[in-house]
């Protein structure tokens, strides 16, 4: 009987919404607009030394991000020696491959990168629901077709988390934040053995 209660409890917890699972409660939507300020300056080149870890292999390179206009960002990855590995143009609805190494031109990989980068650079969005826990605010939004949660600590965006079936799928964490720039960014996949670490060099 005790086992059954425990199982039912687990089942209920399993069905609970993502915000509830991590201890947030519903609150009123305060602002209709959410802004990710970290790639919002058209005049700035955002240049990061990057490490991409797939399974146990790590690849280094330089990730470059640039806001081209109000909707579009350009994202390119080069080796340290300068060869371009990929170069994408990305907006909320469009994704254009300007260049990719033939060996990496795989649908699955492109789809993962498209989703990760779209979440990373999407500048403006509106909350569908808002939650709170102490000083922290959690906003549920939809980017493309994906549900994401934006965590703000004292009005600073610290995480963008993609959630599916009320479970965390991908987390983008922003660190060393100052002057509307995150100098360290960590993208972690929970279902794939894929992690991307970015450190600003400019």
């Amino acid at each position, binding site marked *: 009987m005790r086992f059954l209660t425990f199982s039912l409890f687990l089942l209920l917890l399993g069905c609970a919404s993502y915000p509830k699972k991590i201890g947030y409660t519903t609150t009123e939507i305060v602002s209709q607009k959410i802004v990710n300020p970290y790639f919002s300056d058209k005049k700035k080149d955002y240049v990061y030394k990057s490490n991409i870890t797939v399974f146990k292999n790590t690849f280094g390179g330089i990730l470059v991000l640039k806001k081209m206009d109000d909707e579009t960002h350009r994202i390119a990855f*080069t080796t340290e020696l300068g060869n371009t590995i990929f170069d994408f143009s990305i907006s909320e609805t469009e994704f254009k491959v300007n260049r990719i190494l033939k060996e990496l031109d795989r649908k699955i990989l492109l789809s993962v990168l498209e989703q990760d980068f779209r979440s990373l650079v999407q500048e403006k969005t509106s909350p569908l629901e808002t939650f709170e826990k102490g000083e922290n605010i959690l906003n549920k939004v939809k980017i493309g077709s994906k549900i994401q949660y934006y965590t703000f600590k004292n009005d600073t965006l610290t995480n963008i988390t993609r959630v599916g079936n009320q479970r965390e799928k991908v987390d983008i964490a922003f660190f060393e934040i100052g002057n509307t720039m995150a100098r360290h960014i960590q993208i972690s996949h929970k279902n794939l053995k894929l992690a991307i670490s970015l450190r600003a060099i400019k």
Partner: protein
Amino acid sequence: MYRLLAIFLFFSGMAFAQTKMSVEESKSLQKLVKQKSEQTKTISSDFVQYKHLDFLSNDIESSGKLAYKSPDNVSWQYQKPFSYKVVFKDEKLLINDNGNKSKLDLGSNELFKQLNHLISASINGDMFSADEFEIAYFRENGAPLVHFLPKDPKFSDFIKAFHITFSKEGTVEEVKMIEPSGDYTRIVFSNRVENKAIPDAVFDL
């Protein structure tokens, strides 16, 4: 009218800046570079690398030290703005990425083997192989400038052209690697020291 004049001046200015070399001149340059490369057993040098992507406001600048030991050991040690070392040695590619070390065997990969060979060749300048490249000779502001266009499409998919600027002595001063998109990497060498023993550790991680 003024606009026409401006366009004319612009193009004639370009023509002045870059002129074609005569056949005799190009032959003597080839000879000089070959001689120089045969005499050069080691090179150590500083370098500054400029990565140009058309959509960026500024080139991405990095710098460090290069070491070369004949016939094809090369070490690129980036020091700014990040620490990164890549060594081409015995058909292997060794990488130390800020403490993370890795090794790649190039023996099985024809393309990387070629790349390794090309990198060594572009450092000492001896790339005058008509089988591998279309070659064109110029002078730019007096300095010899040679365009090497890889013939193998497997390679030209990566790099459309190498532009190498030589000194009067036949040493490489600058290498520009142009990608099919037109974006490029320009590497400028300085403080070159030749034929001074380089410790083996430089070619290890």
